[in-house]
């Protein structure tokens, strides 16, 4: 599980996240979420994330998605992801669960 702020910076990761992606807590904390998105999908992420930030409209939240993610090692794997957003102390936070499906 991972939580990011409204800019996409990683605020919190649980232990399982670190296990799956192969990062140490201090390596990933504060980094941008784009780090776990495979290069081919980064354009789509940038555009989708920009749309969400500017218009508040998301096409992906609140549903199970089968998406690819990239580990620290560079290995790309399929995962079921579920993304939600919420307000915490007037700031928007976005959380996702990522369950490898391979």
């Amino acid at each position, binding site marked *: 599980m991972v939580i990011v702020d409204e800019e996409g910076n990683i605020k919190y990761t649980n232990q399982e996240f670190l296990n799956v992606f192969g990062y140490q807590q201090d390596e990933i904390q504060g980094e941008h979420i784009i780090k776990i998105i495979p290069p081919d999908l980064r354009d*789509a992420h940038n555009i989708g994330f*920009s*749309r969400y930030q500017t218009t508040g409209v998301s096409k992906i939240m609140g549903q199970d998605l089968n998406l690819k993610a990239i580990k620290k090692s560079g290995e790309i794997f399929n995962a079921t992801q579920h993304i939600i957003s919420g307000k915490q102390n007037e700031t928007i936070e976005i959380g996702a669960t990522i369950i490898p499906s391979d």
Partner: protein
Amino acid sequence: MSDELVKNLRSTLSKFELALGQIKEAILFTSKNGQIQWCNQVFDKIVEKPHIEILGQCFSELFILDKDDNILPLKQLQDNPGQEFTLEYHSNQSKNKIYQIYGRSLQGSDESISFVFVISDFTERKNREHLALQSQKLEAIGTLTAGIAHEMNTPIQFISDNILFLKESINDLTQFIGVVYDLTQKNESAEVMHNRIKSLYEQIDIDYLKSEVPVCLNQTQKGTKQIAKLVHSMKQFSHPGSKELSPVSLTNIVGTVLDVTKNTWKNYAELEVNIDKKHDQVYSIQSELNQILMNLIINARDAIVEKYGKDKKEGLIKIRNQMTKDFVELTVTDNGTGIPDEIIDKIFDPFFTTKEVGEGTGQGLAMIYHAVTTKLQGKVDVSTNHGEGTTFTISLPVSTKGL
């Protein structure tokens, strides 16, 4: 990068995405392997999948082309960064849809190649073109039907007159035979019999019948042959077999088309046909060639009538063939008005016509150009002298080799 700058860029990106979602064309960009990195809503709708499921998929797997190799010329684009191409494909998913695809490769600052595609739905436009071609064909059929009806009417007229004459002749002959038979039953003297038969023979004028009946029968036979040939040509014209490129005889095509169009030109022009038998065979589609030659002949006739009027027969239409390196050229030359320089570039455009409203759809030459260059894999050329005449040259492949 400052947060403010990132925010500005995100706002710009999102405006672009919103705007690109509102146009008619599908837009997408892919990695150099064809993996979709982004697409607009129009593309989502074409492939009937949720946006998120499209991202990362291979373009050619989602958008299956009705093309033997199902491959977009990515390699070609890749080798020539910045190249553009426009191709028409039939998508398999949406049956009967035709799309035009524009593609362009881009080289990123890090040497990475990506592709941008714009896909337009061409179906409606193609259908319109198809309808226009249909109406051109109907118009041509109308012209031909009137002409053929006239062509057939002449022999039918004299055959019908001949039958009337033959009927009367047979009546007379039957009567004569009846009288002769009666006389044999009545023990009349030879002299009486001779006189009766002689006077009836002269009265009926059997000598005349003897000379006229064979002439009449021959003429009738010729007339029915004429009609049968015309019917055969009409059949050749309307149900001419293969829609694929196959061996076709120019002599047959020219014969068929001259038969069915005869009435449209015979009062205004002489036809001079010179088909070199050595180069008679081409690889083509008979039905298309029939239509093309018919259009060319009717155009030649129109140019001749425009120049000399309908009262004179000063027109000359020459049809001939010659061999060039890879093609057999079929040329149709007329001594009509010719084409003015200022419109020569437009004559193959759909809907371009110099004829009065109701006299032409402006599809004739456009149809010829389209059919020759696509279906027949040949070429069309025109040379003209304003006021002196025009030659259209249709170059046709002689074999499937090299196609």
